[in-house]
């Protein structure tokens, strides 16, 4: 008995002596934070010697970006585990631990290829994909049926036709999306650009946006508002939540949004509960469709100590494991980054659209991957918004984007 007590004492001493405390940033949108805390309880049981403290972050990605800029610029040792937007990898790469040698440890070959692309900078892995996002088309099943449409629109032209007919007859809005001047506008614009056959930068890094396809794509966005009149002029002030609120009140037929909207649209107090369908975004004139890849990755702070980095790796491996991704997908509606999770019957039951639209998530396209992405994004935001508010024509806007990007990337 005495021996056992001594042993216990020694073990506790070791445990205390070797225990590590790490900090992690996380968003708190919807149930995100609650779910993470549950996951951390499970983690604590596996690794009692690692203590994890969560630092909640603001909702807006721009604000999170500013916070990281301050951390990194000051060479802060905390937080150790960083939740990073897919577009930040290249910009923040110099401050992130290189995880290339841990490729097998994190089982990265099991992940969706687009998500791996988003964490690769010059052939090095700088973060691990946590959850993924892609632009989707939400539609009112009940209204489409009422007006004799069996399927959601296949092409943008079909969408315009359906939206016009239904919105005029019902006296509601046709189509809402994100048109405010912020990052979300770039996501929406790229989807039109790609589906119309355009591109911002080619594989060689050359700016190729100055094309007739790009002008047509932007003109189409402008036409949605002023010619077809299926999108309200106010869309130029809409972010995700503005669009969702309009759609959720039952005042729009179609909406472009991310997967997170599904759970909210089907919550008990939602007027459109059970009346909503989800489809891939429509095809452009060239027969191409595209969804912008979104999502968040987990990286490790380069300034952290060796012990903290080791503990951080364990935490990231745990959070991106099959079971935990399934748990997160079911409880907070955030899409898994591992392919195999999409075959799980439990996921199919909780979020059927995730499984049905797997091809959308697999084929989602990343935004241009350059270290000065935020500058590039700012240029696109500025001129696309100017075209949407008719301060210049689509052609002038595209010309201006091309000119400034050429200057930025030279």
């Amino acid at each position, binding site marked *: 008995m005495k021996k056992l007590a001594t042993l216990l004492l020694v073990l506790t001493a070791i445990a205390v002596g070797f225990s590590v405390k790490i900090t992690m940033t996380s968003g708190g949108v919807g149930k995100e934070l609650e779910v993470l805390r549950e996951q951390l309880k499970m983690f604590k049981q596996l690794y009692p010697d690692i203590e994890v403290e969560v630092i909640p972050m603001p909702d807006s990605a721009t604000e999170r*970006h500013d916070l990281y800029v301050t951390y990194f610029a000051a060479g802060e040792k905390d937080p150790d585990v960083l939740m990073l937007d897919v577009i930040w990898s290249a910009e923040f790469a*110099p401050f992130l631990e290189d995880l290339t040698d841990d490729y097998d440890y994190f089982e990265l070959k099991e992940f969706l290829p687009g998500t791996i692309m988003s964490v690769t900078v010059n052939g090095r892995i700088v973060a691990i994909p946590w959850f993924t996002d892609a632009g989707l088309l939400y539609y009112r099943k009940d209204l489409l049926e009422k007006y004799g449409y069996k399927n959601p629109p296949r092409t943008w032209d079909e969408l315009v036709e359906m939206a016009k007919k239904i919105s005029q007859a019902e006296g509601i809005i046709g189509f809402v999306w994100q048109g*405010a001047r*912020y990052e979300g506008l770039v996501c929406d614009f790229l989807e039109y650009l790609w589906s119309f056959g355009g591109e911002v930068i080619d594989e060689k890094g050359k700016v190729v946006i100055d094309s007739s396809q790009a002008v047509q794509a932007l003109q189409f966005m402008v036409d949605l508002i002023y010619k077809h009149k299926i999108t309200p*002029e*106010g869309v130029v002030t809409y972010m995700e939540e503005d669009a969702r609120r*309009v759609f959720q009140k039952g005042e729009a037929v179609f909406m472009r949004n991310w997967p997170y909207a599904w759970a909210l649209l089907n919550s008990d107090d939602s007027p459109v509960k059970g009346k909503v369908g989800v489809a891939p975004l429509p095809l452009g004139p060239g027969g191409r469709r595209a969804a912008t890849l979104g999502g968040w990755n987990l990286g490790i702070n380069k300034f952290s100590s060796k012990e903290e980095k080791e503990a951080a790796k364990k935490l990231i491996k745990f959070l991106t494991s099959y079971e935990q991704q399934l748990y997160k997908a079911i409880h907070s509606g955030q899409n898994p980054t591992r392919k195999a999770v999409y075959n799980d019957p439990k996921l199919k039951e909780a979020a059927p659209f995730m499984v049905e639209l797997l091809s959308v998530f697999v084929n989602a396209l990343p935004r241009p991957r350059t270290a000065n992405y935020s500058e590039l994004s700012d240029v696109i935001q500025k001129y696309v918004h100017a075209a949407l508010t008719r*301060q210049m024509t689509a052609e002038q806007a595209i010309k201006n984007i091309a000119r400034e990007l050429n200057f930025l990337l030279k």
Partner: protein
Amino acid sequence: MKIKGSAAYWMIFPTLLIISIVAFFPLFKTFYDSFFSFGLRPGIERKFVGLENYKNLLRDVRFVNALKNTIFFTVVSVSIETVLGLIVALIVHQKFTLRGIVRAAMLVPWAIPTAISSQMWRWMFHDQFGIMTRLWERIGIITPGTPILGRPGLAMWAIIFVDVWKTTPFMALLILAGLQVIPEDIYEAAKIDGANSIQRFFKITLPLVTPTIAVALIFRTLDALRVFDVVYIMTRGAVNTETLAVYNRHVLMDRAFTGAWFGYGSAISVFIFMLIMIFAIIYIRSLKLRLD
């Protein structure tokens, strides 16, 4: 008791020290940085460029535009606030029942943090369910369906509107303090001499309250010249509402790691500082304020 000079210096030393750390040091550092070309990304060489950043400012179309917007915002909003503030102050200076409650309630817009009130107003200006949008439609200022915050021209007026709503109480409070120190007997004397109320206002009230208005004007102008939160939250600088501080944030934050922009960002900060200083000097000179 007389304290010797040196003892007095020792007593203000802690204050000076703290001010130096939190105010003078960053100010000096920003000045210093503005003469260099550098970024925060490792590997970007720090180069002395002299006045190059300042020369580039004038060639930067976006900067010049932001400067114009800032001046427009400042002149218009501060003018309206001063006039309204004076009127409100004169009203609450009168004796009426529940005056105390009215004076306290008046301060509510000022007490709400700008970040929160701006978000509140952003919702009220929403094109679909914004109450202000409905109201403006009724009055006939806008045609139905107009996105107030998405229309060039209109958006800036909406921002000015919110700023006026928020800071008029502050103006009113300061001016009220000025009104209260005007002795009552001057008015009595004027009345006996046969001055009517308009004459009393222009000959007595206005001249005596002018120094207070001047101080309030300085406070407000300096604040307005570096306006950030209300613009950033309501429009993020879209539809030609970008002010200097909003552009400054973009250069210092979005571009911190993308290239050698930090020196340039510092130059913008210094410019804002200088602009505020020039305004302050003009006010002090033209209103013949005595700062002792």
